[in-house]
């Protein structure tokens, strides 16, 4: 079973996203991953994430968005998180801005693991307790601890 608290890249977490628009937020998260050398080809990575974003509303409501993709630019499961206090429009069906933005990517041949991670994350973030606590998190370590406790 995939544990989000173990899969998440703590160093990639951004607790105060500077960007205010969907594509810019995704670029900000991807740039951090590239800086940490967790992805080799950030252009392909970004392009694959945005391709999905054009067809899907990865804003799943309740202030949560999960941009994601299977891409050859990922050599393993990559998961990171950004928090936007003001919120960002991710075209959620409920029309509300997204504050909790989790970015997931996996290699193209890891479909099952990728879907399990998406399901696990979506389930965890549907809990109000998770969102309330994440909104107050003061450090990346605290984010990991919260996820560990709630999942």
């Amino acid at each position, binding site marked *: 079973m995939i544990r989000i608290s173990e899969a998440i890249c703590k160093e990639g977490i951004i607790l105060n996203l500077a960007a205010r628009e969907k594509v810019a937020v995704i670029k900000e998260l991807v740039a951090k991953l590239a800086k940490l050398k967790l992805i080799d080809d950030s252009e392909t990575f970004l392009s694959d994430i945005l391709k*999905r974003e054009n*067809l*899907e*509303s990865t804003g*799943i*409501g309740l202030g949560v968005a999960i941009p994601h993709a299977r891409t050859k630019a990922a050599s393993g499961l990559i998961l990171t998180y950004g928090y936007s206090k003001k919120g960002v429009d991710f075209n959620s*069906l409920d029309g509300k801005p997204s504050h909790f933005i989790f970015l997931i990517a996996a290699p193209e041949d890891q*479909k099952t693991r990728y*879907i*399990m991670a*998406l*399901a*696990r994350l*979506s*389930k965890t973030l*549907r809990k109000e307790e998770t969102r309330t606590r994440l909104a107050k998190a003061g450090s990346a370590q605290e984010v990991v601890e919260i996820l560990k406790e709630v999942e």
Partner: protein
Amino acid sequence: MYKRLLVYVDPGETRLDELEGLMDLADQLGARVIALAILEPEPDKPTEKEKKARDELEDRAWKFLYSIEDIAFSREVKNSLMLEEGKTLDTIASVVSSYDVDICATFNYRNVDIPGLLEKLNTVPLLLLNQEGQ
């Protein structure tokens, strides 16, 4: 004309290939597929066993929804996922009304009273899918 196509799915009673016809239709119409799964309301004081069972149901529902998304993506069909909690017919009707759905689709599930659903949908057409995915 038909821009939003809602499909209610019961992950325990549906195979992914049964959604092929729906994807064809969405593709032809250029419509967005909104895949909806519904969890029954949680009891007021659930037992540990009930909590665990519900947890597993939710996990299975999300996996199924994301698998639908993956199929839609591979066919370049626009899509959105929804997991709601409530009584089945009321929840479907509420989503149809709240999100300006143009066509509602589902299968002939045991827990779906089709005449009752038609009544709740009012003028929104109901598309009954069959097990051959048509």
